């Protein structure tokens, strides 16, 4: 049997699963919990929003379905378009989660593309790191910005594979590879994964993990896709650790013996 993989270490804490999942867009909290359990994820993202005043009596809450004692809750800043809003949101999250430090920073630039605003992201990252947060940061797949975020002290770099919610998969594996090669903190693909094979490709490139939400929640059977995603991340990770065979233009090396054929091979040299 192959030697056991090392755990994923983020901000000094070890995780067995390299799949992180979001909790948005599910039918209800029961389905959310079932999908999270099927995925095997230990880190789950949540958003921070105003309570529905007057409509919350007796209503179940997300953190009752996914208790912080059972999962590592990763509050995000989804929906924030500037550094100040993102910092404010995560400070509230820290109070909400009893001083919890691990957060996901994302500052968007545009409601149509949801592309990150890296200038505001860098500014927010500086403030949050100085304030003691362990920042996992969503960013573009720009290797220079990734390096700057790392230099600021972010705990993990999370470049997009393609736009949030697009399901377009890994559109620029070359940029991701550069980021992965040069990073000294974990690199996780965040956004763009559409199906299990996308997660596998990300892991085969050498990503330390994958974060996905819509690919699971918007699948026909979210719980089944969650399980598929867990397997896909493990498969990609194992393939990466194995070291893939070199690519060859011609299949010059058949898998079966060349000798002992009933009829000689044709001479293809015209």
């Amino acid at each position, binding site marked *: 049997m192959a030697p056991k993989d090392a755990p994923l270490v983020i901000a000094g804490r070890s995780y067995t699963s390299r799949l992180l999942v979001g909790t948005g867009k599910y039918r209800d909290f029961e389905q959310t919990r079932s999908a999270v359990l099927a995925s095997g994820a230990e880190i789950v993202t949540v958003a921070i929003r*105003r309570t529905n005043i007057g409509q919350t009596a007796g209503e179940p809450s997300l953190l009752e379905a996914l208790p912080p004692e059972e999962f590592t809750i990763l509050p995000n800043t989804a929906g924030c378009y500037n550094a100040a809003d993102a910092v*404010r949101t995560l400070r509230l999250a820290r109070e909400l989660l009893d001083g919890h430090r691990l957060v996901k920073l994302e500052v968007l630039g545009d409601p149509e593309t949801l592309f990150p605003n890296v200038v505001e992201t860098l500014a927010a990252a500086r403030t949050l790191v100085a304030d003691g947060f362990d920042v996992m940061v969503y960013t573009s797949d720009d290797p220079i910005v990734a390096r700057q975020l790392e230099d600021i002290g972010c705990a993990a770099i999370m470049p997009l594979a393609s736009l949030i919610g697009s399901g377009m998969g890994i559109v620029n594996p070359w940029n991701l590879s550069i980021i992965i090669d040069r990073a000294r903190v974990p690199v996780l693909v965040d956004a763009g994964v559409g199906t299990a094979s996308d997660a596998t490709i990300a892991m085969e490139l050498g990503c330390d993990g994958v974060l996905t939400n819509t690919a699971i929640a918007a699948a026909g059977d979210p719980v089944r896709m969650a399980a598929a995603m867990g397997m896909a991340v493990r498969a990609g990770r194992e393939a990466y650790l194995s070291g893939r065979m070199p690519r060859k233009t011609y299949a010059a090396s058949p898998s079966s013996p060349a000798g002992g054929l009933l009829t000689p091979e044709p001479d293809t040299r015209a």
Partner: protein
Amino acid sequence: MITVILNGAARALEEGLSLAALLELLTLTGKRVAVERNGEIVARSQLASVRVADGDRLEIVVAVGGG
């Protein structure tokens, strides 16, 4: 009575109400919420002692599903 802006909407409240009492009024006692008053986070340990004042801008947030 005083008027505060609670989660973006005007709301009339009794004068002298503590934030803990406001949470109880909103049936949020024991729920995982965070409270911000005039841009400053009010620590859970302070909710019973901080009282709402006329014109306060209050935000009460929870964790919801998200990616």
